[in-house]
């Protein structure tokens, strides 16, 4: 295959092999711009009766061929480069892919101290796109035999063992290695090969670890992921995870050897690719962002704050397969607070279980849609809560304190997620990408995340972030151009003052100045009110706010603020419901408030 360096890329075909569907997109250079032009999809064929992932890939690409008129396949081969035989409508310059088929990459991680190397190892594995099945640590409260039983019963794809700073404890790292060796762990797929294990702990313990685990696992040693307490060094271990994912895990899955040979760049785990495109966008635009992908089984949350990337996956928060777990974790009252009517508890619980066992059904009535969107709000809220606890500064780090810290001392390991400094929220996944009205997607994210001050919101149009993530490893320009033009649907901006007031009391006076001679809007935002102003994609308005004494818009209590706000398919939302967002306690008040908000925004059909 022609390497990307040999020839400028003009035509790219990318696939994402998901658990159930393989999605293919075609990206072409149209004039001077890269655009996503066609898409196709087909069922993933990893499992019986096909047991060859490339079948689904060929089917998805064949759909693109039909739609685009471009000949991409020659029998069971992808034609590269484009322009073969002098015909510009034949072939593509590169084929790339991501994969989460077969349950994705499932890992177990181990460290010495749970909140230090244990967490660093967890962040490393999550950032590499894995689902972390368990975090073992010397101080995790489990007895040795319980740890060993757990390791044995899990059957992960891979283990990441860390622990100790360089020059620090050897004994505890070796202890963890001994437990792993005693468990004789077996890999999830296949019986005939040793489980891949990455050691990224104290360099001084490498020899001992190699003695203990060298024969029982496929051991790879890399740099310590926490060489000193004050610094994480996650990249070398993360790269090793990707290498082993390809060499061991993928190679065991049916058809992947062929797929790896076709691809012009290493195949990435789907969430790793999504994280990469988020990181790229945040870096290029100099913004802080949160991205969420809410699926049927899991919810992934990505964040980039001050250039630090974090990813978490809430493995059991989803909208179908694990929808019951959202109910179990959030509680019925938290779900019902978003529903503008009363429903019998038993009926609701049965409905949720029926959605779990028949996950492909869709809401047919408005009531059903409102219940599903209520559950989505809770899944999003819980997943962000999980994310905040892991996206933190390093714990166990000594901090210098000055006299100014006397009244407000923060411990180490504070969350990095600062909603006031957040610039953009990007939502993805069926419930957000396919909501009947875009406004519904926007309000679901606003209710769940409670953004503070000015925050822009967007959704992924057709879930092409994985494709763009892997593309960014080959051609960053193409990836970012398509991301901005075709992937993101800008919903608009939410302006949310922080503070509480009596229902109907003044929160802030506002003036909104629009571009191109449109009459400015001004008025008073009262507590409990929601206003929506049309502001189209590509337009910007200047929003001036004079908040009440106890209300903060980012500049301090009572301090006026003036900022530019970007538009979108929904527009500019002024959210006077207060932060934190409290819904009225009494059922009839809450239902009345919800109905008022829905009516004010035009959230649902009348």
């Amino acid at each position, binding site marked *: 295959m022609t390497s990307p360096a040999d020839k400028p890329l003009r035509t790219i075909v990318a696939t994402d092999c998901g658990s159930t569907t393989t999605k293919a997109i075609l990206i072409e250079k149209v004039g001077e711009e890269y655009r996503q032009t066609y898409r196709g999809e087909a069922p993933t064929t990893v499992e019986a009766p096909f047991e060859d992932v490339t079948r689904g890939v060929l089917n998805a690409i064949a759909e693109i061929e039909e739609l685009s008129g471009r000949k991409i396949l020659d029998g069971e081969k992808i034609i590269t480069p484009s322009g073969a035989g002098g015909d510009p409508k034949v072939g593509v310059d590169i084929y790339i892919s991501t994969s989460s088929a077969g349950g994705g990459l499932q890992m177990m991680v181990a460290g010495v101290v749970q909140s230090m190397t244990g967490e660093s190892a967890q962040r490393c594995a999550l950032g590499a796109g894995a689902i972390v099945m368990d975090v073992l640590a010397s101080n995790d409260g489990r007895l*040795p035999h319980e740890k060993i039983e757990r390791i044995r019963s899990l059957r992960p794809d891979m283990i990441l063992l860390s622990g100790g700073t360089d020059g620090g404890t050897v004994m505890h790292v070796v202890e963890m290695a001994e437990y792993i060796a005693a468990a004789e762990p077996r890999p999830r797929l296949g019986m005939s090969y040793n489980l891949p294990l990455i050691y990224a702990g104290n360099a001084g313990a490498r020899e001992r670890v190699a003695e203990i685990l060298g024969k029982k696992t496929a051991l790879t040693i890399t740099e310590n992921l926490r060489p000193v307490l004050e610094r994480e060094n996650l990249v070398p271990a993360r790269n090793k995870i990707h290498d082993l994912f390809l060499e061991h895990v993928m190679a065991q899955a049916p058809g992947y050897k062929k797929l790896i040979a076709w691809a012009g760049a290493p195949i990435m785990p789907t969430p790793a690719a999504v994280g990469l495109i988020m990181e790229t966008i945040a870096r290029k635009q100099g913004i802080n962002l949160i991205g969420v992908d809410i699926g049927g089984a899991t919810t992934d949350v990505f964040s980039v704050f001050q250039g630090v990337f974090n990813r978490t996956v809430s493995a059991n928060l989803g909208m179908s*397969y694990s929808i019951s777990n959202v109910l*179990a974790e959030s509680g019925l009252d938290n779900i019902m607070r978003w529903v503008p009517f009363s429903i019998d508890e*038993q009926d609701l619980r049965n409905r949720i279980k029926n959605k*779990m066992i*028949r996950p492909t059904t*869709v809401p047919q*009535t*408005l009531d059903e849609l409102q219940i599903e969107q209520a559950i989505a709000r809770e899944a999003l809220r819980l997943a962000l809560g999980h994310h905040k606890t892991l996206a933190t500064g390093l714990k166990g780090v000594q901090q210098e304190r000055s006299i100014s810290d006397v009244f407000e001392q923060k411990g180490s390991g504070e969350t990095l997620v600062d909603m006031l400094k957040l610039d953009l929220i990007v939502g993805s996944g069926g419930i957000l990408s396919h909501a009947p009205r875009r406004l519904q997607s926007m309000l679901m994210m606003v209710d769940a995340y409670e953004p503070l001050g000015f925050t822009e919101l967007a959704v992924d149009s057709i879930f092409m972030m994985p494709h763009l993530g892997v593309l960014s490893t080959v051609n960053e320009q193409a990836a970012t151009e398509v991301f901005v033009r075709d992937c993101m649907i800008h919903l608009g901006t939410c302006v949310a003052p922080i503070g509480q007031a009596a229902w109907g009391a003044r929160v802030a006076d506002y003036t909104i100045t629009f571009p191109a001679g449109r009459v400015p809007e001004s008025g008073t935002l009262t507590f409990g009110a929601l206003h929506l102003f049309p502001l189209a994609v590509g337009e910007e308005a200047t929003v001036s706010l004079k908040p009440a004494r106890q209300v903060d818009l980012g500049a301090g209590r009572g301090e006026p603020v003036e900022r530019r706000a970007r538009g979108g398919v929904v527009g500019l939302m002024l959210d006077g419901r207060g932060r934190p967002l409290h819904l009225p306690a009494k059922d009839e008040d809450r239902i009345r408030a919800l109905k008022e908000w829905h009516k004010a925004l035009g959230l649902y059909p009348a």
Partner: protein
Amino acid sequence: MAHTYTPGLTVTPRTVISKKRILPIPGAILAEQGKTVASAEVVARAELPGKVHVVNVVNLLGILPEDLKDFMVKREGDRVEKDEALAENKPFIKWFKTEVRSPITGSVEAVSSVTGQVILREPPRQLDLSAYLDGTVAEVIPGQGIRVETACAFIQGIFGVGGETWGELAVIASSPEEVLTADHLMPRHAGKIVVGGSFVGTEAMARAKAVGVRGIVVGGMHDKDLRALLGYDLGVAITGTENVGFTLILTEGFGRIPMARKTFELLRTLNGRKASISGATQIRAGVIRPEIIVPLAADEDARGQVSSARQERGGVKVGDPVRVIREPFFGRIGQVAGLPSDLTVIPTESRVRVMEIGFPDESTAVVPRANIEVIEG
């Protein structure tokens, strides 16, 4: 004629089912290719490594890890009996001697001079893998397991709990609408798989457990009763390992829902026959649904005439029986009356492909195609 493909649950009086029986770790295969096996017969066997115990000898003796080997009475690989000395110190006065004794009978797996731990392992446990079905060994997979094949009646449920079991089918309900109550369950139902109609509640399940029923097959149950049965709220649809005293299979879903008449009638014809059932459910890629398998007798074996239910699925046509699987018509069974090809706007404002359904009471409804299930067989 317009048709669509919507996978459903299989309910068929005759098909051929093939099941792979694979050991979790490599082991010995006891069954031979071509031979007949019974459900309870052990077809493969593996030795699971024994449970591991860790003894921190250095702490108990008050010595340094690097000196541990000098204090060990037993070496790596040695067998030990419970309470036998593993290590001992060497005081000048014998009275002050301290011994560290083995908490188990097994062997010494490792002695660590870094951590000071001694790892002991219990003897391996034997794991027997049964055939699960009455059938024939169609394939032997060396070291891993076998494939059993049987001509049978085959019914898939929608959700279940509990693992594999087998027993005689006892159809208790007189109609698909009848609720399975505690009064229905008698001591004579011990060891049997009982079939109810529309619903089973907590009281009936408690009685089933007390009586020793092996399995319950019923239309529906309430979520709250499932919580009471399991002792926790099931969050994710992966089941099959629960130990609740019996295996439970729902054919329709959650709520009080009459069993599909076709399923009920088939089960009624199989009353008194031996069935193998499993409650294992996994709703994700590689879907697993609970199942009821009733092997056919030798004279009923029409292997040449039957084909796999999977191959019969061609799509949905006007006139096919379907079940609605979402509100507002949840649980109702009808026939496909029309398959409009254009996208239709439903009350949520989503544009979806729909299907017109005629119900037995002659009412009709338009339902998203995603919300129906074909009754297959």
